[in-house]
């Protein structure tokens, strides 16, 4: 998805559940961020996380990694992998993450 940073900024960041987001390339370089976060640092963490999970998927024969949802009492995070770009979205933890995942799929049409 070549225009992921643009979609993230103009569409996804405007969704009511979204607290902050960051888009990086697959090497962790910052492409776009929105909200009160250190996009450079968190973006790198997202990439390293997805790389480790992709190794799990490879070992288990589960195919390519598409998405990671992390839930906790204080915050929720969704990391979505698109070719050579990684989108990390921080969400209001009081809202259901599953509903947002469907919205995100629609926004990204995947």
């Amino acid at each position: 998805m070549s225009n992921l940073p643009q979609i993230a900024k103009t569409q996804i960041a405007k969704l009511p559940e979204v607290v902050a987001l960051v888009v990086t390339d697959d090497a962790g370089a910052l492409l776009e961020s929105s909200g009160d976060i250190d996009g450079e640092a968190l973006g790198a963490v997202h990439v390293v996380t997805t790389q480790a999970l992709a190794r799990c998927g490879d070992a288990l024969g589960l195919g390519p990694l598409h998405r990671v949802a992390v839930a906790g009492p204080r915050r929720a995070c969704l990391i979505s992998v698109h070719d050579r770009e990684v989108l990390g979205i921080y969400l209001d933890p009081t809202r259901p993450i599953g509903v947002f995942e469907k919205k995100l799929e629609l926004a990204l049409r995947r």
Partner: protein
Amino acid sequence: MLEPILQSLREVEGVQGAMVVDPTAVIVAHRAHTIYDVTVLQQVARAVVSSIDSVQLIQDDWDMLTAHFGDGKLLLRSLRVSGSRPRRYILAVIADSTLNVAFLGVALRVAAGKLLTELEAAPVASAAGSAAASGAAVPGAMATGTGRLPLAEASRPELARTGLSWTGTSTGSGVGSSDVGVTDPASSTFLSACTKALAASIGPMAKVFVKEAVRKVCGERPFSRNDGPALLAHLAAGIEDRDDRATFQRATRSL
């Protein structure tokens, strides 16, 4: 007995395997389809611990992680054992694409409760040891990829607490532009150069580790150029691979 609890998860449609992993990637117990032999599971355990090491940097109180793959899912649930020596295990569930996540959610909650009871009852050293004696545990080591800086257990919350509250400009050019205080522009430049040199060894996590090291070296006070040698020594000491450490030291010699 952990295995019967894992077996109950295996009975959920779509679940292909389940295992409990300790923070050092030792498999404490497992029940999995025969295609997932011990070698594969050990490989997965190391990658799981590595991914959780990263997740804890941004969310130390995570409860559940769901990874969606093209042909299945991997679900990780945090098992926090309380008591005199609190510790954290990870319950990993491997599933194919037929899994109904809602159904698994119920089974997972029940299983997690039972596993915690069992793990809390077991002494720290023997949780893995007793399983090893019964042939269930697989010896393992920390997932230490080349040049990876191990995160001390105690250091994680410090970073994780900052999490979303990290401030700074998203397009900032260096560490100094973020929430690590610096005394002057030269100190900021030093941190940026230091991050770049470290990135050559450990990749994009370099900035995170530099921030953590600055907090360790300087505490609450802002970083100054005079703290440079102590910071470099701290970072170099954390690089396990000898060649990577030498590369980092060469790259920072002129700073």
